[in-house]
């Protein structure tokens, strides 16, 4: 006998996916982020990408923890779960294991995901459930009004660090890679097109996809990423990485990244010493390279890599659970409680 959930899904299977627009994904709730917050852009790009995925709204679930970013599910007209601090990744994991048919998204921040939820974050990465994680990194605690976060730069002066923070910051991409993530990407709140592309790729990836979004908190940490997002400085400080393409950057496309041993270095393509052929060519299937790229993150004199650092295939957790269930059933038949109760030693009292 099929379960109640299976019956329900069978009844809903005739549903044809309508031609959605971004607006269809807006819940109509008043958005309560501060005016000018980078979160607005992330919400807008996500809503823009959703219609392209071909997934009906009722099959989508956005799960969040606590923090400014975690209000996100309220604004999406999908199923949503605003959980508790740090635990979105595990709420989502349980949901995905129980319901592999759903498209499950986690929205978290640098506090929620890297601090209180750090443990769950790394375990989700290694398990590789098919869940998409959007981490809004603004390098500050916004909802609690301005304390330093696990990604704040060392020396940051905040309400809780009047003499400057002495913590060394996490590098979320490196943390994800170190936890054996299969999809790791970085994008920018002020680059809608790039973000849309990354979110789409994340959705299509089978396995956990981790997307770090540099997001401006214009109230408590304004301009934290301006070097990478503003017109005047962006080209010289960001290298957009693309699979199969050499790492070229600069306003005039006149600079590149070359590997000197295992160490990336900036070379000029102008003075004739190096050409494009000498540059590092990105390969998103190369795990070793992904570590080198992620490690460029806080290095002075190196541009910040933005794009998809790694996208590889590995077995997916919930598929393995289903495979084991199928295997057990093939070997022993579908479980029968009556038989189980009577297995082993039993006796009759008359």
């Amino acid at each position, binding site marked *: *006998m099929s*379960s*109640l*959930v299976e019956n*329900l899904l069978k*009844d*809903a299977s005739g*549903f044809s996916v309508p031609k959605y627009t971004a607006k269809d994904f807006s*819940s109509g*709730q008043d958005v309560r982020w501060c005016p000018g917050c980078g979160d607005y852009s992330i919400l807008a790009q996500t809503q823009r990408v959703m219609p392209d995925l071909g997934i*009906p709204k*009722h*099959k989508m*679930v956005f799960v*969040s923890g*606590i923090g400014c970013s975690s209000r996100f*599910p*309220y604004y999406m*007209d*999908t*199923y*949503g*779960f*605003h*959980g*508790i601090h740090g*635990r979105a990744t*595990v*709420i*989502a*994991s*349980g*949901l995905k*294991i*129980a*319901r592999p048919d*759903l498209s499950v998204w986690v929205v978290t921040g640098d506090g929620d995901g890297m601090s209180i939820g750090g*443990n*769950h974050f790394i*375990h989700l990465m290694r398990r590789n459930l098919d869940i998409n994680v959007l981490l809004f990194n603004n390098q500050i605690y916004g909802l609690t009004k301005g304390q330093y976060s696990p990604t704040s730069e060392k020396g940051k002066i905040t309400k809780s660090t009047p003499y400057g923070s002495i913590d060394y910051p996490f590098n979320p991409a490196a943390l994800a890679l170190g936890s054996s993530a299969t999809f790791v990407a970085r994008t920018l709140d002020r680059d809608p097109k790039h973000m849309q592309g990354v979110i789409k790729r994340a959705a299509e990836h089978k396995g956990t996809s981790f997307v770090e979004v540099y997001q401006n908190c214009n109230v408590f940490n304004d301009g934290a990423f301006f070097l990478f997002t503003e017109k005047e400085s962006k080209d010289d400080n960001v290298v957009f990485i693309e699979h199969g393409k050499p790492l070229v950057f600069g306003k005039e496309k006149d600079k590149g990244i070359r590997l000197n041993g295992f160490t990336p270095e900036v070379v000029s393509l102008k003075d004739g010493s190096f050409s494009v052929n000498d540059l590092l060519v990105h390969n998103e299937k190369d795990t070793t390279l992904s570590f080198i790229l992620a490690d460029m993150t806080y290095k002075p004199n190196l541009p910040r890599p933005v794009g998809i650092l790694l996208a590889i295939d590995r077995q997916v957790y919930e598929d393995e659970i289903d495979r*084991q*269930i199928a*295997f*057990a*059933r093939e070997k*022993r038949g*579908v*479980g029968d*409680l*009556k038989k*189980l*109760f*009577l297995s*082993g*030693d*039993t*006796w*009759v*009292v*008359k």
Partner: protein
Amino acid sequence: MAKKTVKNLNEVTIRFAGDSGDGMQLTGTQFTNTTAILGNDLSTLPDYPAEIRAPAGTLFGVSGFQIQFGSSEIHTPGDHCDVLVAMNAAALKVNLHSLVDGGSIIVNTEGFNDKNLKLAGYAQNPLKDGSLDKFKVYEVDISKLTALALQDMNISSKVVDRSKNFFALGMMYWMYNRPLETSIDWLKSKFKDKPEIQEANIRVLKAGWNFSETTEIFSVRYEVAPAKLTPGRYRNITGNQAVAWGLMTAAKKANLELFLGSYPITPASDILHELSLYKSHGVKTFQAEDEIAGISSAIGAAFGGALATTTTSGPGVALKTEAIGLAVMVELPLVIVNVQRGGPSTGLPTKTEQADLLQAIYGRNGEAPLPVIAASTPSDCFDAAFEASRIALKYMTPVMLLTDGYLGNGSEPWLIPELEKLPDISPSFVTNPDGFQPYAREEATLSRPWAIPGTPGLEHRIGGLEKQNITGNVSYDPENHDLMIRLRAEKIERIVNDIPPAHVEGDSEGDLLVVGWGGTYGALKTAVTRQRKKRHSVSHLHLRYLNPLPKNLGEIFPRFRRIVVPEINLGQLIKVLRSKYLIPATGFNKVRGLPFRSVELEHEIEGILKGKR
């Protein structure tokens, strides 16, 4: 061959004790299974150290297993043992206090060499210094006899040494007239692929039996007739296994998938182990990275439409507390199993206690009521787990199921239920989008609709922020908050109409009412039964539902002159009862990490009746 006398016994308690590596738990389990099949009623208590392999021969490395069996109803593993099997000096030292005066000790003399005596802290050999004169001591060189039985087999001395527990088992089978077949069959299937180990153990088991039969060491043999139990088919079951099977049965009867999110913790891990076996039943188990992840994953699964559960012990509940509050707020069904152990903090991980009742009822931030149910015996864990699931699904609420280390590891015969006779507890998922509101409540139960992702048109958001009544939208409105707090409380209170009234065992009025809950049932029942045989006016009331409490309690209490509430804590139920019913109850509290002994309860009851307390 000497003539042997056969004596009939109504009940007997045996304790097997040895090193953690001596296989005492296995010996005890084998004896239990054979005894159960013979039709005796029984109750067992494993008592093992927290250390996995403590140094051999030491006091803290002693592992014990006690079984009481009889020809009438047995409710406890026995206060004291009649027979102590001691595989070494340390085992004797640790367990001698539990032996009745005049009881029998069967010792493995090899375990009393100088090294063992020193490790056990004996200045002189107790077998030789007369200190055991008030007991019947049987000295058997079990190690040597085991080696002799296996001398023509080409096996390592390690395997030989590990077989000696079966010699002791064989002796006990002979002494209590039990057949060897059950254990032989077990060995054959367990060591199917290791024929040498199989043969060695079978030989040693038979050697133990034959040794007892032919030597003159034992002059008496005992007979314990089958007990008169409710007719039907039985099997032996531990509390942890019963919880696992109860949850599986509930999922089946609810037509839902069972999801367990759990983190290993003593003494609850066996539930995780057990449920992990049943992939063919579609059970999904998730060993999470910590306790918080265990419950949070279960909450996620509940949102997706599973019968979700998380299993743990006290410290784990402490970690899960915030998430339990979330489950209260989002009103999703969830069964939280707490196999209580000695606390606080890490406490006594392998020992039993009942000190998490207030944590279960009150231990959350904010007004966060939830139903609390306690199992009373190992086999009752099945019914309690089923009932916890029923309430969780019907009222869309997390439910706390309390068992304890004693129930979880203890075992007793279980009357196998007929699945057809268990009620259907299927929930109904809402599917109609017309007028759907996530927090519109059902009139009778006040439960909210369960709308699972995948249902077209019911897209909605839930979360830990306060909800607006009916719509479920986030609301900071003061009046709404007050209303929602009351609605959530009222929902749990209304469960009182859906649970059976409390039942007094014995007279419905009298001098003394003994009120208990949870795993103390057997000890209280035994004590009260014995006192009633002495024509004392005492009755027993055992609570399964701790929140809400059964409706009729307020009518029962005034019918007794005195009320005593024995608990393995410093008085938790009594606080709840006093505050709700304003009764002058007396506590009886011992928190030693051990179950109550019925004699100490009897002593207390007599003291109260004589007006000494």
